[in-house]
Structures are given as structure tokens and as C-alpha cells.
């Protein structure tokens, strides 16, 4: 008996019971499809977190003002107004720090000519484009002189350009009114697209932080300090140095809690990524359980099939089938069932992934190894759950099998 003949016998037997074969496969189909979809969601989420981190730069740290307690209610990070531009300048002098930019933001209506648009205006330092690795599309970014003089100059993100200058004219040299203050456009930023949270990063106007503080918000504190370390390896050192420096500057003596918090994006990212990994693991676990249930379904049907076909087995033995041949036949039937179920499951899984990606706009990623693995695993399910019934069939006594009613 060669492989071809054995496969032929298995296919013939399965095709004779089409409906039952389909129903048996259903368990494996659902299991494999579930594995594919959950892995695709998990891998997609992880990849988008990774992409976000690399778009922000792995050398980046952020310093946020700390939490304050107001009437018993704690505000959470960023609630206090404790960070000043001077803190930023002191951090910039630390070794291993390449650049620092404070940020002061406000959301407001901006007007240019006959067009207006609501957007985020952020006051930053000239180093900001370097820290974010953000290229210019046209013109220039503002300089240190502009910062010192709190110049009324601004740089526009691409979404703002499209909405304030819809006819395609160059915005350079034009005036944009922000809270009634006229700012001159000196440059436009390159397109960055959405960030990992789905926010449009191009819907922004950047101005010198001094201009933002003195002319727009009237604040003396900043909402965030963005720091770029010289390289990824020095991020943990820089984190400690900033903490020590700011504790000294803010005169904080333990056990008084810090009025600021320093975080590296790496730490945030790895926390997000490990949360994702736990989720992925749980989902894959649920999917694996459903695949297991599918396998038990196959075993159940194969047991029924062996009992139901006892006389057939007896006959096959009488006309000369060796017991190994009977074992192979039933094992092959089980493997064909589970593998076919696996392949169909992959197809359904891919379709389901595509559907979720299109309808829910979730980032989905299907690693090809998982497709191979799913099919291979379902074949193994067939071997594992098919072996016992097949062995039972091959150990039947021919006479008892033939007499079975």
C-alpha cells in the first residue's frame, strides 16, 4: 500500500459521509480561524506600538509635571504647574543629553484670509524637529533668535496647510491669526500621518515656546519637556540625572514625593508591548482550547466511525489488509479531516482578519509562520486524536469484526 492508495481510501471514505466529514472539520476550522484572527490582532497591535516608538525616536524621554492634590482630589500627572523653561535649559546642559524642547499647547481657532480652522498650537524650541526627526517640507524652522525675541512666526503642519490654503498657494510669508495675534508663516512641516493612537500629527501649528507663553497662553510653566538622549543606551542614565537635577532645583527632599515625573518612551513602549503580549497569549490560549475541542470532536467521530464500520474493517482484513494498513487508513482519514479543516480554517481566518481590518480599522498583521504552524498543528491534532481510534480498528479480530451487528 503506497501513500497514494492510502490517501485515496481515506478520501473515498470521507466523501461517502460528506455531511459528517464537514461537521467534524468544523471544530478544527473554527479553532484555526480563531488562532489566525487573534494572532493577527495581537501581532498588529504590537507592530503598531513598535512603529509608534520608532517614529518618536527610541532616544526620547519626557518630563511631565507631577500630580497635585486639590481639595482632596489628586489631578494625575500633568496636573501641577511645576516645570519651567529654565528646568529645560538646565537639563540641556547635562551630559548625554542631545537636545531639550519644552512644549506649551493650546487648542484654538486659527484664521488666515477667508479660511479658518481649529487646531492645536504648540510652543516648542528650535530643537523640536531634531528630537522628533521631523523633516521640513518648505521654508525654515524658527531659530534661537526667534525664541529669544518671542517672534510672531509659525510653522504649519500639512493638514493645517490644506485647510487654510486650500487653493494650493504657498503659505510662506502669509499671515495666520492665532487668538487674534498675527503670526507669519516661515515654513511647513513634512507629512507625518497618524500616530499609533490614530491622531493626525499633521494637524498642528508650531510656534516658539516663548511666543506661545507670552503672547497666547500667559503661562510661565510648560506642560511637557521633551528630551533627546545622545543614544538609546544612555536613556536610563539620563533618566536618573534628570530626576536628581530636578529634585535639586525643586528643593524636594525625600520622603516628599517628586512634583514631576520622568519617563522614557522605551519604558512606556515595553510596558505597552508586554501588556499586548499578555493579551496575545491569552487570546492564543482560548484559540488553542477551541482547537483542542475540535480535535476531541475528530476523535469522537473517528470512534463512532470505527464502531459503525466494524464489519467493513473485518471484510478488509479478510480480503488481505494487514493491520498496519487498517491503522494507516483510519489515521489518514483523521489527518485528512484535520488538515483540510486547518486549511479551510486558515482561509476563514484570513477572511475574518481582512473583515476586522476593513470594518474596525484595526492594524492587523499575519505572520506567515503562523499560517504554516496552524496547518501543521491541525495535522498533528489529527495524528494525536486519530491514533487511538485507528489503533482500535487495527486491533479488531477479523471474525468478531465480521460477525459484528
Amino acid at each position, binding site marked *: 500500500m503506497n501513500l497514494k492508495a492510502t490517501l485515496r481510501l481515506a478520501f473515498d471514505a470521507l466523501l461517502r459521509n460528506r455531511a459528517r466529514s464537514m461537521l467534524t472539520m468544523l471544530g478544527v476550522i473554527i479553532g484555526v480561524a480563531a488562532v489566525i484572527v487573534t494572532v493577527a490582532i495581537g501581532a498588529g497591535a504590537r507592530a503598531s506600538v513598535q512603529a509608534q516608538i520608532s517614529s518618536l525616536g527610541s532616544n526620547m524621554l519626557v518630563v511631565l509635571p507631577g500630580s497635585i492634590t486639590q481639595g482632596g482630589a489628586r489631578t494625575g500627572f500633568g496636573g501641577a504647574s511645576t516645570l519651567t523653561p529654565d528646568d529645560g535649559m538646565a537639563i540641556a546642559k547635562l551630559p548625554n543629553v542631545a537636545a531639550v524642547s519644552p512644549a506649551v499647547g493650546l487648542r484654538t481657532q486659527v484664521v488666515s484670509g477667508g479660511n479658518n480652522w481649529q487646531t492645536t498650537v504648540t510652543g516648542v524650541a528650535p530643537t523640536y524637529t531634531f528630537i522628533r526627526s521631523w523633516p521640513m517640507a518648505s521654508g525654515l524652522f524658527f531659530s534661537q533668535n526667534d525664541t529669544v525675541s518671542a517672534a510672531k512666526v509659525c510653522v504649519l503642519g500639512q493638514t493645517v496647510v490644506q485647510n487654510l490654503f486650500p487653493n494650493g498657494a504657498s503659505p510662506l510669508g502669509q499671515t495666520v491669526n492665532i487668538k487674534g495675534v498675527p503670526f507669519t508663516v516661515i515654513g511647513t512641516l513634512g507629512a507625518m500621518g497618524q500616530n499609533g493612537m490614530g491622531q493626525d500629527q499633521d494637524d498642528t501649528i508650531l510656534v516658539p515656546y516663548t511666543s506661545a507663553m507670552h503672547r497666547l497662553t500667559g503661562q510661565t510653566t510648560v506642560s511637557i519637556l521633551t528630551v533627546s538622549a545622545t543614544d538609546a543606551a544612555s536613556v536610563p542614565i539620563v533618566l536618573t540625572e534628570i530626576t536628581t537635577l530636578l529634585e535639586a532645583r525643586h528643593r524636594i527632599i525625600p520622603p516628599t514625593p517628586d512634583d514631576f515625573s520622568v519617563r522614557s518612551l522605551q519604558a512606556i513602549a515595553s510596558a505597552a508591548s508586554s501588556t499586548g503580549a499578555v493579551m496575545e497569549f491569552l487570546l492564543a490560549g482560548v484559540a488553542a482550547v477551541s482547537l483542542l475541542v475540535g480535535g476531541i470532536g475528530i476523535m469522537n467521530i473517528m470512534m463512532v466511525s470505527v464502531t459503525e464500520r466494524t464489519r467493513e474493517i473485518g471484510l478488509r482484513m*479478510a*480480503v*488481505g489488509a494487514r493491520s*498496519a494498513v487498517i491503522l494507516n487508513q483510519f489515521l489518514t482519514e483523521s489527518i485528512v479531516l484535520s488538515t483540510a479543516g486547518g486549511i479551510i480554517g486558515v482561509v476563514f481566518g484570513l477572511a475574518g482578519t481582512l473583515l476586522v481590518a476593513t470594518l474596525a480599522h484595526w492594524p492587523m498583521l499575519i505572520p506567515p509562520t503562523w499560517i504554516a504552524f496552524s496547518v501543521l498543528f491541525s495535522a498533528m491534532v489529527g495524528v494525536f486524536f486519530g491514533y487511538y481510534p485507528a489503533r482500535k480498528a487495527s486491533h479488531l479480530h477479523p471474525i468478531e469484526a*465480521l460477525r459484528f451487528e
Partner: protein
Amino acid sequence: MSDVVVVEHLTKLYELGDDHVVGIENVSMRIEAGEFIAVMGASGSGKSTFMHLIGMLDEPTSGSYFFEGIDAIRLTGDERADIRSRRLGFVFQSYNLLPRTSALENVELPMIYAGVPEQQRERIALEKMALIGIAHLRDHNSNQMSGGQQQRVAIARAMVNNPGLILADEPTGALDTKASKDVMELFTTLNNEHGITILLVTHEADVAAFAKRIITFRDGAIISDVRRGEVAA
């Protein structure tokens, strides 16, 4: 003529707890090529046990059995399976055709296990079906055929590997008188014109009457062995 089967002191005991039941005891006989033998006896007489032992579907407790000169007692399970596929043909009372399978595929079945190449199987199967006069049934499933037709398919199946011996266990047991007569006439023709050796188990005297030699079992032993033309002792 050469001996197909030589059996000496063949005994088969079935264990039932501590006790045992005699299937057959101390049976000696031989079958020559070209014989047509009917084995008779009441139920429990040992005739079925005898046929299962000759057919290598079961193993004896003691005694010797040579099939075509091969010592069957010393064969492994796989070797017995190979002899069943190449040298023995079986016909059963309940036909035992595979359900939802065409007559042609049923006839081809033993050749699959004997390792006959696929392209030859159909030709050989159709040849035997034509010989038996059922070539027109090739695409019929068992539920589309009468009992007599199904038994003819089973006989064709028993013949495809040109066996040295065909064993038929109550082949007419499920058939009406007309179909029984047709099947027995077919066996007679196969024996007379093609020299096929046949061992048939039955409890009906009129069926046994078609055979050239009648062996009768009682309580696990042969009580008479008569060739046609001889006078019963």
C-alpha cells in the same frame, strides 16, 4: 493432484473464563486442487470454526495446517493477511460489500491490498465480472442490486486474485430459492470449467448437493466425509 490444504489433529478451544468450549477437536483432512466441498453440520458443530481456521482468520490451539505447502501455524499476522489477499477468496452470507461503493470498486478491493497496480485493477475486475455475467452492474451500488446480484459481486471479488481456494460461508443463506440455485450453479460452473477449488459451509442439504464432496461436522469432529458417487458409510 496437488494438495491445497493438509490439516492434521487440528484443535481449536475457546476460553470462557476458567472453562473452555471446543470449537473443533482433532480434525484431520486434506483438500486437493479442483475439489468442490460442502461442509455441513448444525450450528455449534464446528463447521464455521473449521472454515475460519482454513481461511486463516483465526489461529488453532494445536495441530498442524499446511496451505499450498506453507506451514500456516508459523506465519505472522501480516503473512496470514498476505496469503488471504493473494491465495484465498471469501464469500459471506451477508455479502459484505462496502456501502456507497460501486460494484467495480468492491471487486477491485482485494487487489488494492495485494498491491496490483491501479491500471491493471479495473481490467482484471471487469474480466472476472464478465466471466460471472455481471459486467453490466459495474457502476451499481449495493443498495441498487438484488441479493443474488450482490452475492455475484462478492464472488467476483473473491476471484480477482486467482486464489487457490475460495471459502464460502453460507453463501445462499440470505437468498431466495431461485437466487440460491443461480449462485450454486455459478459455483459449479467455476469449479467444473475453471478448476477453482471451493470450500462451502452450509446447513442446507439441497445446497450441499451441488458439491462433489460433503463433510459433516458434529460436536467439533468430522462424522462423515462422502464423495459424490460413493455410498454413505
